[in-house]
């Protein structure tokens, strides 16, 4: 049994601090890699070349250049904006993102993740909901109709898809018999096949809900350019915009990583021992597949209508995930 409680001793705090710092530093790195992947992939899907010149070959330094550009830009705050709320909103979004990263298991040892909590998956779902507040704050404080409507849409959407997201994980929790992230991965390693095979309904619902939580296409109504300019990020510029920008990509990573942990067996892969340095690479490879699918979907599917979005969540995903839970529970007892 692990918890946040036995926090005595300097070593504990030092270790935790280093791990947190690594997790925090990972956010921009992940954001850049995924952002670059998105640029290149979307370009190729549209028969374009994409970033080409920056950094010499393949435009690999494009995102770094963009980052520098964003940081240099003037930080504009609208005159009518509610300044403290406006300023804190991106930070809160970023906080939710970073807090997610700390429970992703990359390796079975205690250095493989920041903390293995007894209620790990529950923690992940809880902190991922914190960004919602940030989005609402950003939408409200911008003193802009578009931002406001974007914020409202985001809130409605995030609340609606929070439920299937949580419910979809319950099947896995029932099957694994634990909420600890390491425990879930170990359960899959022990039975030598991922939960994807039995919880495919859960995986589908989880990924759909995750897309909606990320407000990515086809669920990007809150920032729909053609309707709302840029929704709740309309008024943001400079490094505050960078925060939103990075948070989206980092969130893609962490959502995919959670899906990998829950459904795809985490660092487990047939034939490869789990305690080697290959483990993080396996996780990254699996995350890469899911991220690729997300990017692919974004450049393939058109946007939903607002009412279709709510219908999908309340009338389809939630009932199906509840049925999934019931079936899993019954099978768990019977089999």
């Amino acid at each position, binding site marked *: *049994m*692990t*918890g*946040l*409680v*036995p926090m*005595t001793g300097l070593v504990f705090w030092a270790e935790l601090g280093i791990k947190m710092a690594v997790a925090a530093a990972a956010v921009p790195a992940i954001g850049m890699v995924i952002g670059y992947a998105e640029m290149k992939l979307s370009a190729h899907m549209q028969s374009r070349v994409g970033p080409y010149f920056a950094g010499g070959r393949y435009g690999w330094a494009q995102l770094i250049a963009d980052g520098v550009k964003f940081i240099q830009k003037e930080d504009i705050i609208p005159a*009518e*904006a*509610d300044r403290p*709320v406006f300023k804190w909103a991106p930070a809160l979004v970023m906080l939710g993102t970073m807090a997610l990263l700390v429970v992703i298991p990359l390796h079975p040892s205690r250095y493989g993740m920041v903390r293995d*909590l*007894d*209620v790990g998956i*529950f*923690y992940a*779902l*809880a*902190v991922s*909901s*914190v960004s*919602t*507040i940030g989005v*609402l*704050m950003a939408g*409200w*404080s911008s*003193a802009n109709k578009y931002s*406001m409507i974007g*914020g*409202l849409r985001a*809130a*409605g959407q*995030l*609340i609606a898809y*929070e439920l299937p997201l*949580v419910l979809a994980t319950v099947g896995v929790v029932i099957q694994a018999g634990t*909420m600890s992230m390491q425990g879930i991965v170990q359960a899959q390693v022990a039975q030598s096949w991922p939960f994807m095979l039995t919880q495919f309904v859960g995986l589908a619902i989880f990924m759909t809900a995750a897309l909606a939580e990320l407000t990515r296409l086809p669920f990007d109504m809150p920032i729909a350019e053609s309707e709302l300019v840029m929704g709740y990020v309309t008024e943001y510029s400079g490094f505050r915009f960078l925060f939103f920008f990075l948070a989206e990509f980092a969130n893609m990573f962490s959502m995919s990583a959670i899906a990998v942990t829950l459904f795809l067996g985490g660092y487990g892969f047939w034939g490869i021992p789990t305690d080697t340095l290959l483990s993080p690479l396996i996780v990254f490879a699996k995350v890469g597949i899911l991220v690729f699918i997300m990017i692919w979907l974004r450049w393939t599917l058109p946007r939903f209508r607002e009412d279709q979005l709510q219908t999908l969540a309340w009338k389809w995903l939630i009932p199906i995930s509840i049925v999934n839970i019931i079936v899993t529970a019954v099978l768990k007892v019977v089999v």
Partner: protein
Amino acid sequence: MTFSDWLAEPVNWAFLALALPMTVAAVRVVTSRNVVHAALFLVLTLAASAGLFILLSAEFVAWVLVLVYIGAVIVLFLFGIMITRAPIGRETDLSHAGRWPAALASLAVLALTLWLITAVSGQVEGFDGPLPAVGVATDSAILGEGFIMRYLIPFEAVGFILLAALIGGITLARKDLTPAEEEEAERV
């Protein structure tokens, strides 16, 4: 235990680091001139209380608090505020003239409660001693068993209340359409 003894314990610094901002935020919840700010200060208060729960080794409750309150209830609040009215800037009349009697009443409650705490503290054994349960996080399996074994009926009752609240909320908040609008909605 003297105050300096108490302060020598590092975990109490953590407590203070949570409790003081929490109190300040709570004061701002009830005095802030801006509804949205009040709601956001409530977020702070609740986040701090989640931290306190972790100190008290009630980890599961802490994350339930975060998930349900910060993730859903406050969002619902902000949603409600923005739908009803969302003026940016301060409102002059958030508190009404009855604030002095209200302050008096709340002070009376505070006084009575504090007096009760001091009165009881002498009579219960170990009241002033360190909390025994702190240090080991409560296993969530215990809570789960509690819910479906001993507290099954309250659990079901709460489920029923949630259902009733769901239906009630929908019924209250939905707009009654005129026949023409209904026709319109059906056609879409």
